[in-house]
C-alpha cells in the first residue's frame, strides 16, 4: 500500500491550488491579458487610504490594466527598494524624494520620461518649476506630486489656553528663537505641556538654521558648510529653551532622535505643543489627533534671513524594471491630472503642481488642507532659493548629527566638544563617500 493514497493526494493538490489562489489575491496579480502595474510608495495611514482608493478608481476606469499598490513607512521604503533593484524587480512606478532621486537617476534605476510626454503622459498643465525640478541634464525624469516646505505644527488648543494669539503676540511667519522660548515657557506654565519639541537632534531644523546664518549646508565643492560657531550656537539656543522648561526633558527628547514616525511626534502624543515637519505631513498628523493643528514657519534669528526652501515633496518615477512603460506612464499621468483621482489625493502629498488641479481643489478643502494652502500663500517670498541636491554621503552625515546630538541632550559632553567631534566626522564621511 502506498502511503500517499489517492485521497491524501487530492487534498494536497486542492490545498496547493487554494494557496495559489490566495497568493494571487494577495499579490493583486492580473490574469490572462491584463497589464499589471505595480505602484510603490512610502506613506502613513492617511496616505495609504487615499492612494489605495485612487488605485481602485483607476482600475475601474481602465479595464485591461490592473494597478496594485504597495506601501511601507519611510524608514523601510528605501531598504526594500534597494533589494528590489538588486533583484531586478522594482515596481513599475516608484516614489522618490528630492535628494535621493538624483542618485537613482545617476545610477540608471530611474529612466527618462521624454519618450512618453505628449503620448501616454500629459504634463501640459504642470508648473514649469516642477518640471524643472524633475529634469537632469536636459532629460525629464520625475513627475512632481506636490510642493513642500518645512512647517512647525502647533496645537492650537494649547496655544490658546496659554494666551498665545496669532497677530498679537505670535507671528507664525516671522518669529525668533527668543520668541519661541518665551511662548514655549508660557505654554508650559499655563498648561503643564512643554511648548515645543526639542530640536537639538533635528537635522531639518539645523539645516534651516545654517542657511539662516548665511552659510550653505554644502558648499559648491561638496564640502560641509556649517562652521564650529554655527553648530555651537544652534545647540546653545535649544539648550536655552530646554533649560527654561520650554521642551520635554533632555533624555526624553534623546529617545526621539532620528524618529520619523508621525505617531511618535510630540504634538501627536501630547508630550509637547509644537513639532517640526514637512508641510505635507500636516494632513497625516492631523489625522492622528483631535486638537486642530496650526501652521508656522520654523523659528528664525533676528536677522530674518530665509532658511527654509520650497521643493517638490515627492515624485513619481518610472523604474528601469517596468515591463510596460506605456501603461505605467498612463497611470502616472492620471495620478497627477485626472480630476477624480486628484480630488481623492487632495493635498496629502503637498500642494499639487498642476494648476487645474489646484483650482479644482480650492472649493472642497478639508480644514487641515485649508491650513496648508494658507501657509503656502503666506510663505511666498520668505523662503530661500532651492539649492543643488546634496552630495552622496549626506544621509550618513544626517544620521551622525542625530547620533552625536544625543550626548548634548543627555548633558554628557560640552557643546563645543560635541560640535567639533561632529564636524570632524562629517568631514571624514564626505571624504570617504
Amino acid at each position, binding site marked *: 500500500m502506498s502511503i500517499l493514497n489517492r485521497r491524501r493526494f487530492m487534498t494536497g493538490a486542492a490545498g496547493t491550488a487554494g494557496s495559489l489562489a490566495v497568493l494571487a489575491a494577495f499579490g493583486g496579480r492580473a490574469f490572462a491579458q491584463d497589464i499589471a502595474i505595480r505602484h510603490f510608495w512610502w506613506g502613513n495611514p492617511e496616505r495609504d487610504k487615499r492612494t489605495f482608493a485612487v488605485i481602485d478608481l483607476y482600475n475601474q476606469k481602465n479595464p485591461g490594466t490592473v494597478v496594485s499598490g504597495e506601501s511601507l513607512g519611510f*524608514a523601510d521604503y*528605501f*531598504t526594500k527598494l*534597494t*533589494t528590489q*533593484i*538588486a533583484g531586478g524587480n522594482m515596481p513599475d512606478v516608484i516614489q522618490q524624494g528630492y535628494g535621493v532621486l538624483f542618485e*537613482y537617476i545617476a*545610477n*540608471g*534605476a530611474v529612466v527618462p520620461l521624454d519618450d512618453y510626454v505628449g503620448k501616454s503622459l500629459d504634463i501640459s498643465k504642470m508648473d514649469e518649476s516642477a518640471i524643472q525640478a524633475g529634469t537632469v541634464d536636459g532629460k525629464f525624469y520625475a513627475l512632481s506630486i506636490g510642493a513642500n516646505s518645512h512647517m512647525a505644527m502647533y496645537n492650537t488648543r494649547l496655544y490658546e489656553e496659554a494666551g498665545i494669539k496669532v497677530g498679537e503676540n505670535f507671528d507664525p511667519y516671522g518669529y525668533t528663537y527668543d520668541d519661541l522660548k518665551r511662548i514655549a515657557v508660557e505654554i508650559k506654565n499655563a498648561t503643564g505641556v512643554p511648548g515645543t519639541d526639542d530640536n537639538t537632534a533635528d537635522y531639518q531644523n539645523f539645516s534651516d538654521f545654517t542657511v539662516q546664518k548665511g552659510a550653505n549646508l554644502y558648499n559648491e565643492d561638496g564640502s560641509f558648510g556649517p562652521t564650529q560657531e554655527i553648530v555651537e550656537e544652534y545647540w546653545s539656543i535649544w539648550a536655552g529653551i530646554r533649560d527654561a522648561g520650554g521642551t520635554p526633558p533632555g*533624555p*526624553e527628547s*534623546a*529617545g526621539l*532622535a*532620528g*524618529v520619523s514616525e508621525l505617531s511618535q511626534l510630540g504634538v501627536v502624543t501630547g508630550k509637547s505643543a509644537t513639532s517640526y515637519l514637512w508641510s505635507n505631513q500636516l494632513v497625516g498628523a492631523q489625522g492622528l489627533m483631535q486638537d486642530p493643528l496650526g501652521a508656522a514657519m520654523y523659528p528664525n534669528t533676528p536677522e530674518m534671513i530665509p532658511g527654509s526652501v520650497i521643493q517638490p515633496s515627492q515624485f513619481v518615477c518610472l523604474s528601469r524594471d517596468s515591463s510596460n512603460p506605456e501603461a505605467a506612464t498612463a497611470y502616472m499621468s492620471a495620478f497627477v491630472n485626472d480630476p477624480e483621482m486628484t480630488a481623492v489625493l487632495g493635498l496629502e502629498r503637498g500642494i499639487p503642481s498642476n494648476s487645474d488641479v489646484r483650482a479644482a481643489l480650492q472649493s472642497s478643502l478639508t480644514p487641515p488642507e485649508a491650513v496648508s494652502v494658507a501657509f503656502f500663500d503666506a510663505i511666498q517670498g520668505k523662503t530661500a532659493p532651492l539649492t543643488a541636491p546634496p552630495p552622496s554621503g549626506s*544621509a*550618513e552625515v544626517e*544620521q551622525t548629527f*542625530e*547620533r*552625536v546630538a*544625543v*550626548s548634548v541632550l*543627555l548633558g*554628557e559632553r560640552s557643546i563645543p566638544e560635541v560640535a567639533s567631534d561632529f564636524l570632524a566626522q562629517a568631514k*571624514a564621511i564626505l571624504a570617504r563617500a
Partner: protein
Amino acid sequence: MEKFFRRNFAGYAFLAPWLIGFFLLALGPIVASLYLSFTKYNIVRPPQWIGLDNYFYMFQFDDRFKKALQVTFTFVVISVPAKLIFALAVAMALDKGVRAIGWYRALFYLPSILGGSIAVAILWRQLFDYNGVINAVVRWFGIDGPYWLSDPRYSLWTLIVLAAWQFGSPMLIFLAGLRAIPNDLYEAAEIDAAGPVRKFFAITVPLLAPVIFFNLVLQMIEAFKSFSGAFVISGGAGAPLDSLLFFTVYLYNEAFQFLRMGYASALAWVLLLIIALFTAIAFWTSKYWVHYENERG
C-alpha cells in the same frame, strides 16, 4: 560509483529540496558575499574590485566598527551566562516532580518563541519607556526610574533582560539532561550527608557538563547574531549614542542605509570569523571541564 548512486538515489531525491535550497539560497550567497567583501558595491553600479581595502579601513579607521564589537562582546559575555543560569534554575525547579509540568514547560518555553519577534521588541520598548510599566512599578517604591532606553548607561541592560527572558530552549535541554542523571547518585550522596549545594556541584554540574557545553556554544552563537531586538529598540541605528550598536545592526546600517554592500559583506565575514574563533576556544577549553560518560580514562 554507479552502484553507489543507484543504491542511494532515493535518499538524494528526498534530500534534493534541502540540497537545492542550501546551494542556491545559502552557499551561493555566502560565496558571493566573500567576493563582494573585496569590492566596492552600491547595488546599482557593478561591483568594483578594491582588494583588501574594506578590511584595512575596518581595522584602521572605523571607530563604529570598534564600538560595535565592544557592544556585542558586552552583550554576549553578560547575557549568555545570565540566560544559562536562569534556564538551569528553572529546569531544576521543574525537575522536582511539579504537578502539571507539561503546562509549565509550555508556559516557560513561550517567551523563546515570541522573544525574537518584532512584536515583543516593540512591547519591550513600551515596557521600558519612561512612562512605561517598569517605571510605574518602580514609582510605587518612591523611586523615579531612569530613561531606560534613551540613556546609554541602561539601554543595553534592557536587551540583556530580554535575552535572559528567552530561556526556554536551553531550559528544555537542561531538563532532559537532568532527567538523565541517575537518582542513585543523589541517594548515595545523601547517605554520605552531602547538602544540596554539595550535591549540585559534585553531581549535577559534572554530569550535566556536556549539556551545559552544548547550550553554551549554541547560545553564544545566537547572542553574536542577535539582531531584531536591538534593531527595533534602537530605532534601527544603534541609538542612543551607539550603545545598542550590535554588530549585526551596524552591518545592516552599512548595507541598507548607506548602500555599502561590499563593506557590509566584509563585516559579515569578520563576524563569521569571530564566531568561529570563539566556538573553537569553547571546544578547546571543553577538554578540561566536559567529560562524557562513555569516555575512557
